[in-house]
């Protein structure tokens, strides 16, 4: 029986689980099937865990029980209470957990049966441990930066890259030595320590606004580390899940880099965004500014309005007010669309989640390719806390750090209203010509407050005879 369980049932259960994971991600390809995807993933996970509990090697359950209960107790609040705006931190944190698990298992494996291991296994084990522990500390720092616990500005000094790279190199060299002679066990703790340090070093030097890219990268490390664990333990399910996770992280970071027109090396070693919190010096050039009341008049008179949300909307938690505004306008017969830039905000899909949370139907959200051709026919573009993603310099100014980054061509529309608190620059730390255009007006203030104001003003206006939306 137990034999049959271990030789047949468990492998089949794992295969089933692996298939569930693939389907789970496949169904995430559309909002209407996405939740089924989650269910499927849960089922796969459940089956795999239950099957494992029948593994003959498991003889005592008390620690398992304790760990699972404790884990659930921590996981529940993390899953249910974390606000949408804190999702980036949570993601970073869970990478830390996942990577830690991989690192610890690797450690246990090394001391238990590291001596017998052949070269390839030892290499996999080494990679698992190094990736695991560096991702652990790295993700913690990233989470800290996003949460504002660790200071946001990158911590940079000359020759830093050399230092970091040599730290990493030393870790890999030691792994090499272990492959050569597994009895050099004293090296193992050092490898762990060095990896932990490197994780901190790697992330501490990166600007807060680059965290999303870093997180995705750490995501793929975590996945890779889990896959390596699979190599060490010959566990195919781990390899499958790890590879899926790894490729996901990699693809997301590539998408982000593309959308920011940056290279990995630039993100990791560029110390980019060193300026972003300092921001560009307050501009002295004149700008035309409006107040919520005027804004209400203007947009109420428009036929077509496109709203461009950015990081500022997230920072101000203004999404609900923005939704109210959109609804009010729709009711008044104005055709309202949202234009979502792939890297608007601080996380891929950031704006989509926030607006979805505020009950904006996702078919009102249009991506860059879809919306750019429409700006020329747009009467008013309302830019809410977005800056870099609407900066024409990306098209025109070859000198600009964001040159070549695909942007929303709001400057091709009839007129623009920009909501932000000051003339300060965005994450890229570059000035934005858009604000000085004749057809641009600035609506200064905290996004939530001013948009709220605009909504109130709108409600005061007399109902206009409704044009076809």
């Amino acid at each position, binding site marked *: 029986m137990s034999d049959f369980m271990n030789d047949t049932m468990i492998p089949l259960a794992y295969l089933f689980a692996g298939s569930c*994971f*693939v389907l789970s991600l*496949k169904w995430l390809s559309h909002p209407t099937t996405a939740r089924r995807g989650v269910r499927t*993933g*849960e089922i796969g*996970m459940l089956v795999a*865990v239950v099957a*494992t509990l029948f*593994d003959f090697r498991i*003889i*005592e359950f008390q620690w*398992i029980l*304790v*760990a*699972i209960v404790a*884990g*659930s107790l*921590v*996981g*529940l609040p*993390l*899953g249910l209470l974390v606000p*949408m705006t804190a*999702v980036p931190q*949570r*993601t970073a944190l*869970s990478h830390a957990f*996942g990577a*830690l*698990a*991989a690192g*610890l*298992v690797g450690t246990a*494996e090394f001391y*238990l049966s590291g001596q017998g291991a052949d070269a*390839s296994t030892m290499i996999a084990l080494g990679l698992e441990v190094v990736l695991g522990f560096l991702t652990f500390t790295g993700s913690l720092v990233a989470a800290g930066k996003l949460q504002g616990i660790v200071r946001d500005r990158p911590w940079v000094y000359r020759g830093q890259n050399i230092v970091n790279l040599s730290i990493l190199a030393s870790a890999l060299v030691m792994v090499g030595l272990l492959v050569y002679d597994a009895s050099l066990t004293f090296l193992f703790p050092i490898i762990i320590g060095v990896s932990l340090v490197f994780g901190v070093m790697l992330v501490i030097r990166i600007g807060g606004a680059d965290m999303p890219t870093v997180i995705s990268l750490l995501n793929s490390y975590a996945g890779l580390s*889990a896959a390596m664990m699979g*190599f060490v*333990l*010959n*566990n195919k399910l*781990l390899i*499958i*899940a*790890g*590879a*899926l996770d790894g490729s*996901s992280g990699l*693809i997301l970071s590539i*998408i982000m880099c593309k959308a920011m027109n940056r290279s990995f090396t630039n993100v990791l070693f560029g110390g980019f965004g060193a300026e972003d919190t300092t921001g560009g010096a307050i501009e002295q050039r004149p700008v035309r500014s409006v107040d919520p009341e005027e804004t209400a008049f203007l947009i109420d008179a428009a036929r077509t309005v496109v709203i461009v949300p950015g990081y500022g909307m997230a920072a101000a938690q203004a999404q609900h007010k923005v939704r109210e505004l959109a609804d009010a306008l729709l009711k008044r017969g104005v055709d309202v669309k949202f234009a979502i830039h792939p890297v608007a905000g601080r996380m*891929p*899909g950031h704006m*989509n*989640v926030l607006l*979805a*949370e505020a009950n904006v*139907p*996702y*078919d009102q959200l249009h991506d860059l390719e879809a919306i750019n051709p429409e700006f020329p026919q747009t009467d008013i573009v309302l830019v809410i806390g977005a800056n870099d993603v609407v900066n024409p310099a990306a098209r025109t100014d070859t000198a600009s750090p964001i040159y070549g980054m695909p942007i929303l061509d709001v400057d091709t529309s009839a007129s623009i209203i920009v909501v932000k608190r000051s003339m300060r620059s965005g994450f890229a730390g570059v000035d934005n010509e858009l604000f000085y255009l004749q057809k641009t007006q600035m609506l200064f203030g905290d996004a939530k407050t001013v948009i709220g104001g605009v909504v109130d003003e709108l409600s005061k206006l007399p109902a206009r005879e409704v044009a076809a*939306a």
Partner: protein
Amino acid sequence: MSDALEISLYIFVLSSFLGYAVITRVPGLLHTPLMSLTNALSAISIVASLIFAGAGEATYATILGAIAVFASTTNIVSGFLITDRMLKMFRRRERPADKPTDTAPKGVSA
């Protein structure tokens, strides 16, 4: 090359291709849920941790395993929960969507 390694390589390569194929199909709209879902899924490493935590081979192994189980469980629970929470929020507009395809004449298809 040991059989074990060979097999692992095959599984890894195939899964990576598969990952690429399915994940490039996830729209930007769902990239945040994607992150948290893959997160939860990769916490499958719990199946390895369980063995160490329950094998009672050596105290340190048990402890390390238990911590790993703890960490993975947190990810599983929180990951699935928050993903579902996000997805619950994505909804279509009630009134007919104004997608180009829909506005275009449809022919008299029954």
